[in-house]
């Protein structure tokens, strides 16, 4: 075999192997979101907080065949099983709770998808500070903080469904897109980002709970939209006092009438503009501020239908000044608010002439600028 450089071929193959193995070595490239300094393989599975027993009962009814109950699971305590894994019931400090097992294989899949698709903004470690996420307001979520804005649940932790719907439809007006990935991939990513929460916090916290879903109840105003808008306007500026953070959409006189304040009462400066608020979302250890939207101007992140608005108002926006309204005011009033806000969006957003006539009319009256 004279002439064939077997040694040469061996060296070429060796160099090739060396190069590819180097890509997962420890040294760090300061310029890039190189995956070299972090392992792509998750070696341990994780128990993550799952929704409560009611949720399983509901789901089992809504999607027959999705869940099967296994009485022998978890040492006889019983549990549910579906294609995504096993949900086990366990007692912790006197309280029974469901936990979902995310296997190491599944988290590895999720990890790789996360690094490939999400890390440009959310950072390799899920700290919300990837190269594309820098200088961005609102900031990309840090999954180490495990706070999520649009949860559609009462308590802090959203269900997989809620997270899935946010990822699939995106957040309007931000770089968070509607992601065209399959449910399998997205659910793997979701399990992975849940596993990023620190011990004793969020998804790995025994005291946390996956909130009860805020169901879209029946709209009591379907035939009486006009009255809903009037009622919503009263709630907005009255009982709920939305104008404390969002703009007020009435003149000072009207506000006095709605709030039954005496003549001569004055309200906050720049009443027809929103007021900047604190948020819990941190960048480089500093909490950023958030802007409550002006419904006639800003884009709604999580949908503009009445039902979307109902859910958003009811569940609040977690980690920001927007509280949960479910329970604080009645569902009927929540629907009225949703109708009122929807009406503001439909009538004035992106319609400069109509909007300037409307807002200008509020401002001529004097002290609310």
């Amino acid at each position: 075999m004279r002439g064939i450089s077997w040694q040469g071929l061996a060296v070429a193959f060796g160099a090739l192997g060396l190069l590819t193995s180097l890509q997962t070595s420890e040294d760090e490239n300061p310029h890039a979101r190189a995956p070299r300094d972090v392992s792509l393989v998750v070696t341990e599975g994780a128990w993550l907080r799952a929704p409560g027993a009611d949720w399983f009962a509901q789901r089992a009814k809504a999607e027959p065949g999705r869940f099967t109950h296994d009485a022998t699971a978890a040492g006889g305590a019983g549990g549910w099983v579906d294609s995504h894994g096993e949900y086990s019931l366990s007692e912790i400090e006197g309280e029974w709770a469901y936990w979902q097992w995310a296997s190491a294989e599944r988290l590895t899949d999720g990890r790789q998808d996360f690094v490939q698709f999400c890390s440009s903004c959310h950072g390799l470690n899920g700290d919300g500070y990837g190269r594309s996420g820098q200088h961005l307001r609102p900031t990309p979520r840090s999954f180490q903080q495990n706070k999520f804005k649009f949860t559609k649940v009462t308590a802090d932790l959203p269900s997989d469904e809620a997270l899935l719907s946010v990822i699939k439809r995106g957040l309007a007006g931000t770089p968070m897109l509607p992601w065209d990935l399959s449910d399998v991939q997205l659910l793997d990513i979701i399990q992975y980002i849940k596993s990023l929460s620190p011990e004793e916090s969020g998804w790995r916290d025994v005291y946390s709970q996956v909130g009860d879903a805020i169901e879209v109840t029946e709209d009591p105003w379907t035939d009486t939209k006009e009255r809903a808008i009037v009622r919503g306007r009263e709630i907005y500026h009255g009982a709920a006092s939305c104008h404390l953070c969002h703009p007020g959409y009435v003149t000072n006189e009207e506000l006095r009438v709605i709030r039954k304040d005496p003549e001569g009462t004055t309200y906050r400066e720049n009443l027809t503009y929103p007021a900047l608020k604190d948020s819990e979302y941190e960048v480089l250890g500093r909490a950023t501020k958030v802007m409550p939207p002006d419904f006639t101007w800003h884009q709604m992140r999580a949908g503009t239908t009445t039902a979307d608005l109902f859910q958003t108002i009811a569940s609040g926006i977690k980690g920001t000044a927007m509280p949960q309204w479910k329970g604080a005011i009645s569902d009927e009033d929540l629907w009225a608010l949703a109708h009122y806000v929807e009406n503001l969006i439909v009538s004035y957003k992106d319609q400069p002439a109509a909007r300037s006539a409307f807002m200008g009319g509020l401002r001529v009256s004097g002290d609310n600028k």
Partner: protein
Amino acid sequence: MRTSFFALVLSSSVLTACGGGGEAPAPPPGGGPGSSSGTQAPANSGSGGAAQAAGPTAWSDSAGTATVSGSASFKGEAPAPVQIAMDSDPKCVEMNSDGVTDGSVLVDAAGGLQNVFVYVSNGTDAWTFTAPEEPVVLDQVGCNYTPRVVGMMTGQALRVKNSDPTVHNVHTYPRKNRASNVSQPAGSKALDIEMNRGEVLVAVKCDMHSWMQARVGIVDHPFFTVTAADGSFTLPKLPAGDYTISAEHEVFGKASKQTITIGDGEAQSISFEFSK
């Protein structure tokens, strides 16, 4: 695409082998703190120590006879109280017609610092404590929290009331516990907030009235207190032993810790000093 591209080539053998490993281990939350296997409930609440032979014993109130008292003071020139502008909500203005100053730093003429949370941060591991049934009450009166700083035991509820004729939202900022942010219009019933993990000085804020702030100190034993207007405090009913006592203020942060050794029936005095 990624690993599954042309998975035809790989799937039948490799992935099946991998997939086999995906089954969950039998007992649930292996890693969860305080967990035990599903069938045997822990004898008592605690942090996983129930099985140990020489574990902590249940605390009885009569066991403690020692007292630590002292004071917290602020060194240096106290910041001048700032007038709060409440114009955003006329209802608040109405209730405080004389004007209100910011209550975050309250220093008396002698330098005594009010609203310092003082607690035993180490030395109580030998006992387990049961939280009292009755909740700790935090009221919203005149667009301010009363009291401004409260302490409570883990497992105890924080009951937030709204006595104002206006709407508030109760926004807690814990690091280790569940966060919550719920609105509370005028006339709503009280909210019970659970925080089950020891955490000193959890902020409670109202986003609608940006000046409204309170602090909650949560510890897993009853040895905590808040300094009075002159900066004094008393920690009664301590059993004999070695303790680390800490103090934290919402603006000035932690003072340096004090370690003491105290015998039955003794009374000792310590002091904490804060500065900017």
